[in-house]
């Protein structure tokens, strides 16, 4: 069953009606509904087109958080072979919010790391809704060090509401874990390419997305704070998230203009979840191209370029 977002209500009605008609026709072979159903299809397609042609920032947040959106695990399953998960931070635990290990990408050995949100109640709880604890960052640090040691490129898939605001996470030093993970990203002499596939939530995202190249899916977001959090602090009202989302300029399109995002990967009409296969292919193609950009470069060059990129961020603002 399709999960509709709040702003897709009228679309749900039209698509539901078409579906209903076809279901009736299946039960009763005398009925000819195709003409009427196709008209509804056409209406739905037009509506979808108009809804998605100018999504507001807040609507993009909703699409980025869509429960049926392909998640990290879907990308790993579809785009990588020989995926060999490696577990644990060698210190305290294995964090299930963070997937990672050795794999092949188009035949080439790589290390892949990402946050996984889970796809149903059970897995969402297991994955802590994609919110890493310190162990998750420390596992990532370990895997990045492994990649560096054996000259394997690192691919990260970012999809997290942010770091986990829990007691244990603070007790075990999540600040330090995030800082060290960002530091590790910056130290590597192998290419790091990152795709923000859904939500890039503050420090939890930076710890994975400090990369030579950062791609974002068309309706993904990357922000210093959630619109809800920002609204409750600056507007003193969490319900002002629509305005906060707008003000934060957290869309892929704004971030490209600001030089934070290097490329935007187009999504199927209606969002990644409407055609997961096409989305997976598009992301695969982007990863391939981003990795190829670093072929033949020395480790020192790769590292120096990454650093320079970050030092230069902020040299351009948004057009007035």
């Amino acid at each position: 069953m399709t999960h509709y977002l709040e702003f897709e209500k009228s679309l749900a009605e039209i698509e539901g009606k078409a579906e209903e008609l076809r279901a009736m026709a299946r039960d009763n072979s005398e009925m000819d509904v195709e003409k009427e159903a196709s008209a509804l299809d056409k209406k739905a397609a037009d509506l979808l087109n108009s809804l998605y042609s100018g999504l507001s920032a807040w609507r993009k947040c909703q699409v980025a958080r869509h429960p049926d959106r392909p998640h990290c695990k879907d990308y790993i399953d579809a785009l990588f072979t020989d995926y060999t998960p490696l577990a644990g931070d060698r210190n305290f635990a294995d964090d299930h919010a963070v997937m990672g290990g050795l794999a092949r990408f188009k035949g080439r050995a790589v290390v892949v790391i990402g946050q996984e949100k889970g796809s149903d109640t059970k897995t969402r709880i297991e994955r802590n809704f994609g919110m890493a604890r310190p162990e998750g960052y420390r596992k990532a640090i370990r895997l990045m060090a492994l990649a560096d040691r054996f000259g394997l490129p690192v691919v990260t898939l970012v999809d997290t509401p942010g770091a986990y605001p829990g007691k244990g996470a603070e007790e075990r030093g999540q600040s330090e874990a995030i800082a060290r993970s960002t530091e590790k990203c910056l130290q590597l002499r192998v290419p790091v390419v990152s795709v923000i596939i859904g939500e890039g939530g503050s420090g939890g995202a930076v710890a994975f997305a400090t990369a030579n190249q950062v791609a974002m899916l068309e309706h993904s977001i990357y922000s210093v704070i959630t619109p809800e959090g920002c609204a409750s602090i600056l507007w003193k009202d969490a319900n002002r998230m629509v305005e906060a989302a707008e003000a934060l300029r957290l869309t892929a399109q704004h971030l490209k203009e600001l030089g934070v995002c290097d490329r935007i990967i187009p999504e199927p009409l209606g969002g990644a979840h409407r055609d997961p296969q096409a989305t997976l292919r598009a992301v695969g193609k982007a990863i391939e191209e981003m990795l190829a950009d670093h072929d033949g470069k020395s480790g020192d060059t790769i590292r120096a370029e990454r650093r320079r990129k970050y030092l230069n961020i902020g040299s351009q603002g948004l057009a007035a």
Partner: protein
Amino acid sequence: MNWITNYVRPTINSIFSRREVPENLWTKCSECGTMLFHRELAEALNVCSNCNHHMPITPRARFDALFDGGVFTEVKVAEPIADPLHFRDSKKYTDRLRDARKQTGEKEAMLVAEGSLGGTPIVAAAQDFSFMAGSMGMYVGNAIIAAAERAVKLKRPLILFSAAGGARMQEGILSLMQMPRTTVAVEMVKEAGLPYLVILTHPTTGGVTASYAMLGDVHLAEPNALICFAGPRVIEQTIREKLPEGFQRAEYLLDHGMLDRVTPRGQMRAELISITRLLLNLPPETPALPGPETAEPEAPAKEAQKN
């Protein structure tokens, strides 16, 4: 071209330019309520003589007490783009900035200076909580990069005092990007083989804690400073229980292995002198060197006049 390296000659911060403290005023300790005489409070570096509460202190007052003879030279920081997102909530960001400048008399939330500490030439940076809660935006990032570049150029240790409510939301993603940017700065200092010391002061939270404030060679903190990524209120809302007394305070972090030492403000200078000299393998400070009380204003160190 790197726009950061647009280095401008440092201006001399004259000892005479320090703001005069009005002598006829009293301050109430926010912790125990004791009325404290301004001049005495300033002499005690804003620490309550009754309950030892460490009140906020401006970067300038801190540097006056830190550097030998209170003499330091400001390091120029590259000016970032103003209001890159054209941000406004109930108020325009540009208006908030203007108000903060008026209130504090400072340009932004971080001050960078060079001078000598117990005879050891250093570069220091201090974050100003009174300026928009010390929040980390592009200027703060540029300040840390300027401090690191200056430290590397002069081959000096970098000493950084952190104090911030977190990232500056009004600069959106560009404030978040100061996490990797300042981490690059820290890496430059470390790769040059120079000490990077962090003193975490009340409060140091959010993206600041999760970047340059937690990457020091040595982490010192002032007593009872709140140091965290997620603030206590957010955690209480998430886990729906009351947090124990002292949670996320400096002493708690010391117990949990995140800090090297918790040091009262009055002893900080002596401790920093000792640690920098140990790390640089220099002999102990010679007692003849002037301290802040006895010193005459002196010319800045030779290196500072180059360039």
